């Protein structure tokens, strides 16, 4: 109504009064209020979310209290928290948790150091920075299964190109995939090869956003490069870097694909992560209920860790 009035006022005056006809307005049912239109608009997204996320999650919670197996034709019994107790008291689960923790710390640590280092070097490079950035981002665009498959070939102790190169330079043969510590290290290397660019690109965004005048002021004060880095660059980039680290840590925590392809969890079970162990329980052993409890516990752990992390992040940003 307000709009119609204002348009009518701005129309040319005529002797017989305004001959302006307002554009036709779509007829609307009296019941279709703005609130309902809003609800209908978000309904597809909500249905999608409920159908593909919330319902499966709640369904998994329900199953986790039972003895259900997806492939066995057996009556379901309710064991309530029995599966949770089994998972939490299992030595195997704790071993996998330690393996996963070592992997997360090593991989994310390495990726942060290298990614930030490359980003810092790129930020100082004016010519060809765009092209270099695109080139460095390429690994991130590949499928992890493809990455795993070719790294497995490259790291093969007998026929792999890595060992051929090492032998050529006199280092000798390294058993990348059949020694427990080296196999885990190999996974860290493969994961870092693919995901360091993720840290790099976020760090680069932070570095290029640091205002030049801060450096100029530091230059006037004859500040050293280290001082500028420690007191200008790092504090300004750190919050953004923390977000990147959080994403990478969550992603590394649920690592499955590269383990599946490169080591298959071996030798023995030395590179079995929690997700890989969960997969074996769910799809090979067909212990759906135990796997559901396992999965719910992993979600809880990630959620709690993320909450602490976000609080820390908020505090850092507030500073």
């Amino acid at each position, binding site marked *: 109504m307000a709009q119609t009035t204002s348009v009518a006022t701005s129309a040319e005056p005529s002797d017989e009064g305004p001959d302006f006809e307002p554009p036709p307005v779509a007829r609307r049912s009296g019941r279709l209020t703005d609130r309902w239109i809003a609800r209908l608009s978000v309904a597809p997204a909500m249905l999608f979310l*409920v*159908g593909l996320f*919330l*319902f499966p999650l*709640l*369904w998994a919670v329900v199953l986790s209290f039972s003895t259900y197996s*997806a*492939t*066995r*034709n*057996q009556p379901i019994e309710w064991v309530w928290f029995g599966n949770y107790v089994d998972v939490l008291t299992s030595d195997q689960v704790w071993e996998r948790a330690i393996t996963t923790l070592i992997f997360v710390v090593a991989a994310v640590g390495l990726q942060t150091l290298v990614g930030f280092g490359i980003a810092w070097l790129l930020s100082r490079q004016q010519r060809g920075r765009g092209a270099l950035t695109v080139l460095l981002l390429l690994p991130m665009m590949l499928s992890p299964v493809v990455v795993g498959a070719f790294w497995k070939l490259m790291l*093969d*102790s*007998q*026929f792999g190109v890595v060992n051929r190169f090492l032998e050529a330079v006199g280092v000798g*043969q390294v*058993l*990348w*995939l*059949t*020694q*427990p510590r080296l196999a885990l290290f190999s996974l860290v290397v493969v994961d870092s090869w693919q995901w360091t660019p993720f840290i790099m690109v976020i760090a680069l965004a932070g570095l290029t956003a640091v205002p030049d005048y801060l450096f100029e002021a530091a230059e006037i004060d004859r500040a050293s490069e280290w001082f500028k880095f420690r007191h200008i660059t790092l504090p300004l980039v750190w919050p953004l870097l923390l977000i990147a680290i959080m994403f990478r840590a969550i992603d590394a925590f649920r690592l499955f694909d590269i383990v*599946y392809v490169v*080591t*298959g*969890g*071996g*030798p*023995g*079970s*030395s590179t079995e992560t929690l997700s890989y162990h969960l997969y*074996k329980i769910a*799809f*090979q*052993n*067909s*212990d759906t209920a135990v796997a559901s409890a396992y999965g719910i516990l992993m979600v809880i752990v990630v959620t709690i860790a993320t909450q602490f992390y976000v609080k820390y992040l908020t505090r850092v940003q507030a500073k």
Partner: protein
Amino acid sequence: MRRTPTLRRWGVVLTAMLVVLAGCSSGDDDASGDPTSGDATGTEAETTAGTDDATEPADEGTGETETAAAGDGEPVELSVVWFEWAPAQLLEDFANQEYSKVNPNVTISMDAVPNPQWHDAIFTQFAARQTDFDIAILDSQWIGEAVEGGHVLDLTEFAAESINPDDYPQNLLSAYGQYPRAEDGLYDPAGNLYGLPALADSYVLVYRKDLIGEPPATWDEMIDKAAACQEENEGMYGLAFHGSGGSDEAAVMLNTQLWTHGGEIWDPQELQVEGILNSPENIEAATQLTDEMLPLTPPGFVGTAFISEVNAAMAQGQTCMGFNWVAGLEGLQTPEVSGALGETEEEILEKLGFARVPTDETEIVSLGGMGMSVSAYTENEQEVLDFLAWFQQPEVQVAWGAFGGVPAQTAALESDEFLSARPWNPAFVESVEDLKDFWNMPEYFRLLDIHNSEANAMLSGTQSAEDTLNNIASQQQEVMDEIREGGL
């Protein structure tokens, strides 16, 4: 004021979810109910009756037996799921070439998935109570899991009409189709059949004739010859065998070592593993594997080795001897694969020989191979049963052997066509009566996961034989105890 609408909204959401939940649950119930009980049995009766009409009895049939469906009706594509290896392509080619002469309306489509995804590809569809395949080629130990879930048809009555059990080595017919399996591992006429043989298989010894001479007859002789060959030929290693962490790859090698030396891996009657698997005799046998055999393999090789790795080691002249599955050797005799050993097949076969696995305390050899089971959810049941009836005919089995497959019928195995089809076939025939399999029960994968992971750690050189067997025994005993208490 604010609480009421919020609660109402949550009420609407929860009601909607309960409706969805109820819909899904009832759908599941319907789906699971059908094939597992009434439908499987019901169709079985129909099948038998239908098969009587559709397929001639096996003993009267020929490779070109006419079926009722031949020549008329809509084209049907039967989908078979197996894993990616040479026999999968062979079976598809053979079936389409030969069966089309009998029933031109039916084509066979092979869905060959990577080996690590083989079990998942089948059982995730079984879990959904809906399959896009008609025939599942199951590893011999998976039959129990499939049967207990009601995912495959009971073929007992169909088989009674279509096959003659005496045509088969009794251990093979049992291993590829029966559940539960008889204690002696032989076919039990009173038992039920859920699969019919697709491909027989066993471990076989591949050796370098030009370097070894005669194949070793005993286990100790094999180790001596391998050590001598490694010492005499710089850059070569004595042995190659499986030990990868995938599927049952390391477990089969460990079992072979233990069984050959007179050991056992469990007592199926008492569900006992502790004290049997880790007996002093077994520890001694496994120690021979780690201390005497592992040093004769290329460094770091065994922990990631399976069929193609052993073939590559032999084809490239890297090792003097190797264990491999018979059906996995396809192509090894050709210059395309073994070009490093010769330019023609004759030249290659002057260097490569094939023999049965050496003996020690016993003559036991690990059983491979698998049977075809019919998905309980197939929409082409009659066509599948017609195809199975055709494939099990003695003439067809001979033709399958001549085509490069490994048949599971005695006459076909002893036929000239089979014995001359591939250079390793005579070695397989020598082993048939001595083949032995491990657990066939729904808990197979839980047991295998323990067995294979620990064996892989041992064969990677990171764990002693004694620790390995003790670890396996204690963990598997927990599973057995749960079974005994009815907990699984």
